[in-house]
């Protein structure tokens, strides 16, 4: 995980702070005590993990971009929306395969849809970085304004291209329903989301910790000028990170669209609120924090939604406030802030 390197004796070694991870486990166990029924608890936990991991997929790019270049993209939700809309269109093309009752055929429809979502969101991200954000590096106020403006325009363009009505994005038959193990019901799509989300997380961690590019990115988050002084073009690296972040948001958007089985242009704006809460909880710029934050938000939303639906809406805000009272800079504060 990209927890900030603590100053240690001889060689700086990143020490992972396990307290927030334990918090996740503690919340899960505490919820078990309150819920009582093991089967309900497992169902809720899987649902929470699925939701959390989908949010993580969408949020990870945003937090990395902020950590690396100090850019906060308020139009990140746009990539989510584009991913979902492109997935709808591609699924329509492969509607025969998507409707068939065989796993292979279904995957043959979903894979191109997800791939197209990733590519479309990535390309849009490239365009966005080059045209919209580039002139406003280092100016926070203008970044917020310009990315919000970009989102307004893009939302309207989505209306022009896809129409203003809500679209349906049906899950293929083999991914509907749930596995029954004893009296525990596990929704198939949620399990698939968990698998994809974990794969993304592991992939990101490996990329950041085991490759040279990852080393440069982490170094850039810590100290941008120093990396530049070493002769690396941090701008190029940043473009790459931005595009990957946008592509991940597109993937997350497509999956979230399937999760909800409907897509409107508001999908991005709705997710943005959760994403902001997650990356604030995690500590702006920290991928590991984003992961833990996303799991916390997903789990708490599902547990509270079951235990007392009345306050479920406020649970995320409440969680954020409590975490910020405990650690004002988020769970994993970045060293430079």
């Amino acid at each position, binding site marked *: 995980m990209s927890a900030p390197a603590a100053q240690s004796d001889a060689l700086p070694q990143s020490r992972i702070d396990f307290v927030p991870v334990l918090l996740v486990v503690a919340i899960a166990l505490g919820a078990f005590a309150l819920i009582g029924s093991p089967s309900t608890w497992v169902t809720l936990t899987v649902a929470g993990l699925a939701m959390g991991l989908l949010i993580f997929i969408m949020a990870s790019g945003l937090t990395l971009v902020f950590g690396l270049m100090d850019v*906060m993209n*308020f139009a990140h939700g746009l990539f989510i929306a584009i991913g979902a809309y492109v997935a709808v269109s591609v699924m329509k093309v492969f509607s025969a395969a998507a409707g068939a009752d065989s796993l292979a055929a279904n995957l043959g429809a979903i894979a191109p849809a997800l791939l197209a979502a990733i590519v479309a969101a990535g390309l849009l991200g490239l365009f966005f970085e080059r045209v*919209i954000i580039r*002139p*406003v590096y280092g100016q*926070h*106020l*203008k*970044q*917020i*304004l*310009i990315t*919000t*403006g*970009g989102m*307004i*325009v893009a939302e*309207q*363009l989505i*209306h*022009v291209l896809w129409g*203003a009505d809500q679209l349906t994005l049906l899950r293929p038959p083999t991914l509907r329903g749930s596995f029954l193990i004893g009296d525990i019901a596990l929704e198939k799509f949620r399990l698939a989301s968990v698998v994809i989300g974990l794969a993304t997380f592991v992939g990101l961690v490996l990329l950041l910790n085991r490759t040279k590019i990852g080393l440069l990115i982490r170094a850039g988050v810590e100290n941008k000028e120093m990396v530049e002084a070493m002769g690396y073009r941090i701008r190029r690296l940043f473009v790459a990170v931005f595009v990957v972040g946008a592509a991940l948001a597109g993937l997350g958007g497509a999956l979230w669209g399937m999760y909800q089985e409907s897509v409107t242009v508001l999908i991005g*704006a709705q997710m*943005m*609120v959760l994403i*902001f*809460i997650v990356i*604030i909880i995690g500590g*702006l710029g920290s991928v590991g924090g984003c992961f833990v934050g996303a799991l916390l938000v997903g789990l708490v939303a599902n547990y509270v939604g079951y235990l007392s639906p009345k306050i479920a*809406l*406020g649970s*995320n*805000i409440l969680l*954020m*406030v409590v975490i*910020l009272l405990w650690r004002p800079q988020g769970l994993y504060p970045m060293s430079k802030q």
Partner: protein
Amino acid sequence: MIDTLLSGDRPRSRILAVVLVAIFVSLAAAPFLFPGTRALDVAAKVCVFVLLVASYDLLLGYTGIVSFAHTMFFGIGGYGIAIATTRLDPTWGAIAVGAVAALAISLALSFLIGLFSLRVKAIFFAMITLAVASFFAILASQLSNITGGEDGITFKVPELLRPGFRLLEAPLLGVTIGGRLITYYLVFGAALVLFLALLRAVNSPFGRVLLAIRENDFRAEALGYRTVTYRTIANCLGAAVATLAGVLYALWLRYTGPNTTLDFAIMIDILLMVVIGGMGTMYGAVLGATIFVVAQNYLQDLMKLASGAAKGIPLLPDLLHPDRWLLWFGVLFVLSVYYFPRGIVGQLRTWRT
């Protein structure tokens, strides 16, 4: 006299002065100049939004903080009036109770949010306010036994303001002198007074400190000003005026609901108005709100014509579809941020020199 009223902040551009006077006269005489309910609706909305946008400009343009919770305070004002008049009798007392309660809630909330997040970066504040405002919007639509949920609350106003009320038996200059006219002038007068008060605030020593914070908060701090205190006061002041704007809007509509006050789309509208009109110039709020609200109501008719004329050309009719008018304002917004950071007012002032 004029200088005192405007707190010495003259338009500083001949064209701007002419436009401002034209807007002022049109609004002051709106019931007589533009007959019809729709025109009066537009005029009242312009008054309310000038005030709302000016209070937002205090934050964005003068203090340099981006808040996404401005509609929340606008909504608190509207709901305060609506809940008070439906629970109590529709009297002036109930309106006062509602307005005062709404102000108190807004001040407390803005103070808390400010205390919590204004110490850190502008971005952090923007994100927190976005989260809090969206939470508040959901809350308002869920607590339907208090707020009326998605349907909102339709309420009665005091006798004097009701449409059926007649002050004079015979129409004056062809206009009925009744409850609607009185309500309009109440809205207009209150908005005017509050706008001048805001103008006073930004041209006071306090306003100068805000500008200093916007330009360089580190330096302002070094000069001995407590930036957090000033930012928090500006935040509370902006929230209070937004609440009063919400009160006025609710009085005019005799209705409060999520779609007229809390919707994120309104927040976007406010941003567009501030930036296009001109950040950091109170007059920008007047221009921005007037242009935007008039366009919102009349541009669509024009676009319907254009869209019909472009029939047959691919994509163009869709781009010119009346529902897509926000697209063009969005483009204007982005261009404004890049090329005219001081908006229309700033541009007019540069041309003069």
